[in-house]
C-alpha cells in the first residue's frame, strides 16, 4: 500500500506540471498580445487576467462548479464528449488551475515582452525575418529569464492552491486530493507529525522557487540594460 501522502504529492506535481504546460501554450501568446497591442480590448483583457489575484478562490470555484454542472452548456458539451463530468475530477482541477494561475504566468512574461525594443523587431523584419522567426530567435532568447520566472511562479502557485481545489475538486484520494488538502486533513484529524512534515516541505519548496525567481529577476535587470547605449 502506497503512502497516501505520496499519492497526493504525485497528483500535486502532475497538476502543477500540466497547468504550467498549458499556460506556456495559451499564456505565451496572450502575454505577447497584451504587451504589444494598442487595441482597446487590451484594456479589458488585462484586468480580466489579473482577477484571480484579488478574487477569493471560492468565488472562482463557485462559478466553475456552475460552469461544470451538466445543466450548463459547457458542462453538457463536455459530458457528451467525454462521458464524465468535470466537477470533482483531475481534468476539472486542471481547468480551474489554469485560470487561477494565469496572472502569475502572464504578468511577468508580459513585462519581459514589453522590454523588447521595437527597433530590434523592426531590424529583424527588414532583414527578412517573419513574425515566427522574430519571436523564436529574438524575443524568446531575450526574454529567457522572463519565461523561467513566469513558469516557476505558475508552477509554485498551482502547488499552493487550496480554496479553488476544495470547491471544484473535493477531496478524492488518487484523483483530486492535492498536498494542501491533505495537510488540511492531517490537521483536522490531529496528525500533527505528518502535518509538520508536509507544511515544512511546502515552505522550503516555495522559498527555494522564489529565491530562484528573484535571483533571475536581478540578473535580467542587469543583463541587457546597458547594451549599445552609445557610451
Amino acid at each position, binding site marked *: 500500500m502506497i503512502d497516501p501522502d505520496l499519492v497526493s504529492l504525485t497528483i500535486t506535481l502532475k497538476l502543477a506540471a500540466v497547468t504550467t504546460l498549458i499556460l506556456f501554450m495559451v499564456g505565451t501568446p496572450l502575454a505577447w498580445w497584451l504587451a504589444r497591442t494598442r487595441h482597446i480590448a487590451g484594456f479589458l483583457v488585462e484586468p480580466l487576467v489579473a482577477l484571480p489575484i484579488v478574487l477569493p478562490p471560492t468565488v472562482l470555484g463557485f462559478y466553475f462548479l456552475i460552469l461544470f454542472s451538466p445543466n450548463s452548456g459547457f458542462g453538457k458539451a463536455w459530458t457528451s464528449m467525454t462521458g464524465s463530468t468535470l466537477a470533482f475530477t483531475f481534468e476539472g482541477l486542471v481547468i480551474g488551475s489554469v485560470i487561477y494561475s494565469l496572472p502569475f504566468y502572464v504578468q511577468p512574461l508580459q513585462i519581459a515582452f514589453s522590454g523588447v525594443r521595437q*527597433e530590434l523587431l523592426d531590424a529583424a*523584419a527588414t*532583414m527578412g*525575418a517573419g513574425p515566427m522567426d522574430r519571436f523564436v530567435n*529574438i524575443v524568446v532568447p531575450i526574454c529567457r529569464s522572463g519565461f523561467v520566472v513566469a513558469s516557476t511562479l505558475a508552477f509554485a502557485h498551482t502547488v499552493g492552491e487550496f480554496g479553488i481545489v476544495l470547491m471544484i475538486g473535493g477531496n478524492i484520494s488518487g484523483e483530486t486530493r492535492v498536498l494542501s488538502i491533505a495537510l488540511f486533513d492531517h490537521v483536522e484529524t490531529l496528525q500533527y507529525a505528518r502535518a509538520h512534515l508536509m507544511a515544512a516541505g511546502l515552505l522550503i519548496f516555495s522559498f527555494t522557487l522564489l529565491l530562484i525567481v528573484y535571483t533571475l529577476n536581478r540578473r535580467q535587470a542587469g543583463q541587457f540594460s546597458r547594451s*549599445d*547605449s552609445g557610451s
Partner: protein
Amino acid sequence: MEINADIHLTRDPDFVLDVNLTVQPHGITALYGPSGSGKSTLLRLLAGLERGTRSDRIEITDGKNVWQNKHSFVRPEMRGVGFVFQQQQLFPHLSVQGNLNFALSRQHTEHNLDINQVYDWLNLQPLLDKEIRQLSGGEAQRVAISRVLLNGAKCLFMDEPLGSIDVPSRSRILPYLDRLHRNLQIPMVYVSHSYEEITYLADHLFVLDNGKITSQGSMLELCSTLELNSGEGDAAAVVIQCTVAKHDHNYRLSELDFEEASIFVNAEQYQVGDSLRVRIPAKDVSITTTRPENTSILNVLEVQIVSFEESTGPSVLVRLRRKRQFILARITKKSLNLLGLQPEQTVYAQIKSVALLMESIND
C-alpha cells in the same frame, strides 16, 4: 530599383503627411527637415514598418512591383530594404559575429559582396569578437550598417544614423558612409536634421516641413539657392564638388578641378582622382569685374551672375554660376550699384577661404 511613393496620411488631428517622391536608383537621396516634419514617418512607411490606416492613401512601388496600395501590402521582410536605425538595434543576446550571421542566413538576394571587403569598408575586423554591450555608439552603428549590407539589401534606408553618436565620432563615421555610397550600386535614403551631414553625403535632396516637401532636386544645386540661404546671414554657404587634380608638396597645396577651373586647398590626404566636397561661405567671396592681378588670393574663378537676393539690409547675396555648379557671394548693396552688376554678366569671384567639408564638420 526606383522607389515611387504617393502618400497622404493623417496622424492625430493636426499632422498630415502629404508627399509625392521618387528615390533615384543611384546615389544618396536625403530627407532633410526639422524634427516633427514627418521625414522618419515617411521612411518607415517606405520600409513597410508602418502602414497607415484605411482612410490614408498610400501608394508605393519599387519600379516593378507594388509595395503598398489600397489592395495590397508587402511586408517589410519581403521588401529587401536594409534599415539602419538611430540606435539600439543590435540583438543584445548575440555577439557582433552573431548579429552578422543573423543577417547572412536571411539574405534577400544573392549578393556578390565580398564579406571581407565589407569588413574593410567599415573597419569591422577589430569588433567581430566583441559583445554588443562593449561597443561604443559609433562602433555599434558600423556593425548595424555591415549587418544590413551582408543581408543583401536592395536599397539602404538610414534614419538619423548618427543621431545617437557624439560629434567627434560622427566625423569619423561619415567617411565610411561616403565610401559605401561610392562602392555600392544601390539607392540609399538618408534621413537627417543635420545640414552638415546632408551637404557632406547627399546627391538628391528633399526638404520636408510639417509633412510637406518644400523643395527638392540636386543637393549641389539646391544648397546654392537664394531661398535656402536667405536669412542665414553669415552662415550662408554653398557646397561644391571637385576632383583632386594634383598635389604640390612644396607648398602643401592640392589643385582641385572645379568645372574646368582650379581651386587650391590643402588636401594632401586624398589621392589624385578622388572626388570631394568643398564648402565656401558666401561672406568669403568677393566680386571683381576684371580679372584681378597681383593679389594674394589664390582662388579666382570666372563666373556668370545668375540672380540677386531681394534684401532690405546693407548686403545682398549674389548667385554665381560656373558651368553646372553654383557659388554664392555676399557683397554690399553699395558695391552692387557701384560695379553696376547685372544678371548674365561675366565677373570674377575671389574666394578667400575654402574648407574641405570634413573640416567644416569637425568644427
